[in-house]
């Protein structure tokens, strides 16, 4: 029986550098700029590669990374998975040309959730290494072969948030839970903190529906941060805001301690439901007391 500990273990071999997030942003923005259906391989010469399916990240590897997927899978279970069992499946997969992750799930050694966590960490680490090396993709080789399970692929936003979470995994996990409890249908969102190293907003959590280009996500987060900044000059306690645009779209933002949340809603009704949910949260936590009154017509 495996027990996954999502986000509770940092990735020890991610290169620590102040410019890492900026480098990662540039690399992920390159992926965002590919056509929406882009499926194929992003090559970094001998240094590594990223496999994409419909512009989602299925697999990434960098020559400089120290951890292997099997190491991550073994060590995220308590007790660690027996090395022999994992290596036997690895050998079989190598012969049959099958993905090891799915084989481990089939064997019962790893759950789907556990595999997703492990792949997330592996791919995040690889992308951090590729970005940190300063290399730019040499080429994108498209192909029509598909077959990666969407459950095990990741948007650039998710990867950005995962790397942003490393500074304080507990805070990021709490923000992820807050998003999961608060967001409503027809909305998606992200959580961020301020970060000097990122020269602005550092995204620390996103919900899985969030597939904005990373540049746009960061821009919206920065705008939201400045909204609270300027609001502070006339009302330091402002903790909840809603802005509408495009007729029926809305942005709802709220903050709790040093974490700010931003949600983008496809309808005024979704925004109203979201604020209503914030009202419930406010009643139990007292964090956003002002939200308790919010319920007027959109």
């Amino acid at each position: 029986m495996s027990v996954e500990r999502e986000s509770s273990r940092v990735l020890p071999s991610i290169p620590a550098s102040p410019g890492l997030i900026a480098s990662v942003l540039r690399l992920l923005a390159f992926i965002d700029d590919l056509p929406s259906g882009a499926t194929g391989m992003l090559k970094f010469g001998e240094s590594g590669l990223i496999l994409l399916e419909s512009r989602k990240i299925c697999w990434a590897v960098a020559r400089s990374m120290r951890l292997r997927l099997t190491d991550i899978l073994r060590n995220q279970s308590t007790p660690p998975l027996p090395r022999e069992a994992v290596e036997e499946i690895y050998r079989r997969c190598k012969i049959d040309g099958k993905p090891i992750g799915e084989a481990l799930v089939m064997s019962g050694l790893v759950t789907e959730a556990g595999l997703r966590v492990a792949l997330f960490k592996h791919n995040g680490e690889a992308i951090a290494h590729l970005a940190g090396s300063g290399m730019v993709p040499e080429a994108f080789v498209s192909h029509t072969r598909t077959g990666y399970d969407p459950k095990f692929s990741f948007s650039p936003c998710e990867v950005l948030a995962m790397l942003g979470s490393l500074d304080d995994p507990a805070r990021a996990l709490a923000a992820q839970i807050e998003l999961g409890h608060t967001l409503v249908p027809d909305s998606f969102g992200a959580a961020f903190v301020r970060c000097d190293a990122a020269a602005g907003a550092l995204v620390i959590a996103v919900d899985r529906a969030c597939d904005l280009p990373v540049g746009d996500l960061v821009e919206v987060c920065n705008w939201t941060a400045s909204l609270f900044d300027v609001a502070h000059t006339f009302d330091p306690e402002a903790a909840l805001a809603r802005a509408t645009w495009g007729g029926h779209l809305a942005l709802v933002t709220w903050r709790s301690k040093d974490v700010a949340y931003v949600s983008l809603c496809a309808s005024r009704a979704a925004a109203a439901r979201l604020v209503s949910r914030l009202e419930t949260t406010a009643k139990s936590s007292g964090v956003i007391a002002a939200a308790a009154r919010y319920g007027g017509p959109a």
Partner: protein
Amino acid sequence: MIRALGQPLGDAAGANSLDLVCAPASLRTGALLDEALSERVRARLEGLAATLPDLFGTLDPTCLDRIAERLGGEPGDATFGEILLLSDKSLHVIQPLPGQPGVALVAECPATSSIGLVLSAIRARVVELEAV
């Protein structure tokens, strides 16, 4: 008409209970456009008005367009409309005037006010202003 908008909304039935003040302001400079405002009203609105240049026009319109597309909306109207800010103490509203580009109605009332009533009152004032 702009002068009238600068007064507390105490004329309409029930508006006294809102303790709502509003006035037009420039989105470009953040200045209140009603020179006849009382000191009390000016003090309540000046800070909010001053933030307008920082709130409008600072987000890349193409970014909002792309987000609108992801949300299933129509690209093209890439500027924020109504903005509400809430705290324990106050409700602040910014309502750009569609018929007067570069001008928004800024409003403030205590947090104890009914937000629905506040928004209705503000929208009614906007309609009045646009009708002139």
